[in-house]
């Protein structure tokens, strides 16, 4: 199924051997993230935007807003759409064309994490019940893929949402005045929905894999949680997990959420 050559078996096996001794190529501990750098306001024309670097991995996330009709099952709530594009410029592995599964999954996992955590107060994004609501578009682009795009995208989405301003709206013309932002922020809850992914390599568990590590990951679980409450989860790849292993992953995720939360609080602020 995989036409693209991944990390060589030799290197892959070495990664696993190292990990069995608790070591990683870049000297990190199994449950240690690379340095996270967040830059916001990277595009003037976006309502909110951010670039997130985790080690050499880089993603850009932008928020745009538009007025649209609400969905029939939520007439008084704003809408959310999350899409992801894995840009060919970000890795020799990506090609142009319609989104492949990896991009679809990335968008959907981030979407569910944000949506289910109720981070965005959608009821405050309704202009006229049944007729007009704000639709939020969160668009994710990879800039350089060196593993763990998922977690980088999750952080980017929060940073872009946090710093976004709602565009001005002309009530008479019933039109959005793009390019003119109001002072109003997107209504968000305090608790941050933090996405993190725990990978299983051999008998060991790691967070924040590099691309090489990701290649030899046998299974992964992405968990989005805020302050100890899980809002979404997805297991990826084919290796099965015993109950003990699953519980171990939950423990790692619970701990990682706390660490990331502290970091994000200071880096994104407010």
């Amino acid at each position, binding site marked *: *199924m*995989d*036409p693209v050559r991944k990390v060589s078996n030799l290197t892959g096996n070495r990664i696993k051997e190292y990990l069995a001794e608790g070591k990683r190529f870049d000297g990190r501990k199994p449950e240690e993230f690379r340095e996270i750098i967040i830059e916001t306001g990277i595009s003037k024309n976006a309502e909110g935007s951010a670039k997130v670097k985790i080690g050499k991995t880089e993603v850009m996330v932008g928020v745009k807003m538009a007025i649209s009709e609400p969905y029939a099952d939520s007439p008084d709530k704003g809408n959310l759409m999350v899409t992801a594009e894995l840009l060919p410029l970000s890795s020799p592995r990506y090609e142009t064309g319609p989104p492949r*599964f990896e991009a*679809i*999954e990335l*968008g*959907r996992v981030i979407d*569910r994490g944000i949506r*289910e*955590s*109720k981070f965005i107060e959608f009821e405050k994004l309704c202009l006229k019940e049944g007729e007009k609501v704000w639709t939020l578009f969160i668009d994710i682009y990879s800039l350089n893929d060196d593993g763990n795009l998922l977690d980088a995208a999750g952080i980017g989405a929060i940073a872009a949402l946090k710093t976004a301003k709602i565009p001005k709206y002309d009530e008479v013309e019933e039109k959005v005045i793009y390019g003119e932002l109001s002072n109003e922020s997107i209504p968000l809850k305090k608790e941050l929905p933090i996405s993190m992914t725990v990978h299983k390599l051999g008998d060991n568990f790691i967070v924040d894999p590099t691309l090489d590590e990701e290649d030899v990951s046998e299974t992964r*679980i992405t968990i989005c*949680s805020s302050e*100890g*409450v*899980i*809002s*979404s*989860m*997805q*297991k*990826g*790849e*084919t*290796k*099965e*997990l*015993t*109950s003990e292993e*699953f*519980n171990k992953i*939950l*423990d790692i*995720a*619970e701990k990682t959420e706390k660490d990331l939360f502290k970091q994000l609080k200071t880096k994104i602020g407010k």
Partner: protein
Amino acid sequence: MTFKRQDGRKIDELRPMKAKIGVVPNADGSAMFQFGDTIAIAAVYGPKKMHPQHMQNPEKGTLRCNYNMISFSVNDRIRPGPSRRSTEISKITEWALEPVLMIKQFPNMVIDVHINILQANASTRCAGINAAAMALAHAGIPMKEMVSSVSIGKLDKQLVADVSKYEEDWKEGEGATDIPITLTNSGKLTHIQLDGKISFSQLKEAMELAKKVTKEIHEIQKKALKEIGEEQ
């Protein structure tokens, strides 16, 4: 236990299940699986040579699942063709099934599993996985064990097994949390997804509930497969 479910089920009670083998005579293996009003049919074609050739994997066979909802399976007609949702569920289904398949025996080959949801009342991906697992066994693909899938729900604070559409739309209290889980019959986890709101500790309870009720699903699957064995 004061919690009352709309359809009168106990909290750990599944909807009436039905399973049938050989529903698509043309296929190498096929099965139907039903949870109450949710009906999934699955057909297996293969193992057969993978085309185009560049997709062939010399190390192991490829499992290719295709999950599709029939346009009239729900109240609001679904536009035919793949969607982002169905693409994801197809992949999730592959991940849920592949760990039990001895797929290394089929280098350069592909096993196609087509899953169609005839009628939907929540838990369609679980019904699809259950049907697909049976269809793979029916096709004679060597398997280490069976998998069984169920969606565990959390309605307000209460865990329940096999979520119905009514329950999926639960609004009161903490609302609905939907946790589709697939386990092998020895209790290994091959698939989990989650949407909603749940603590780490209650999720562990949900897993225990899934373990308990998937045993019942496994019995139904086994029984259907045995019946066909006796007929032949």
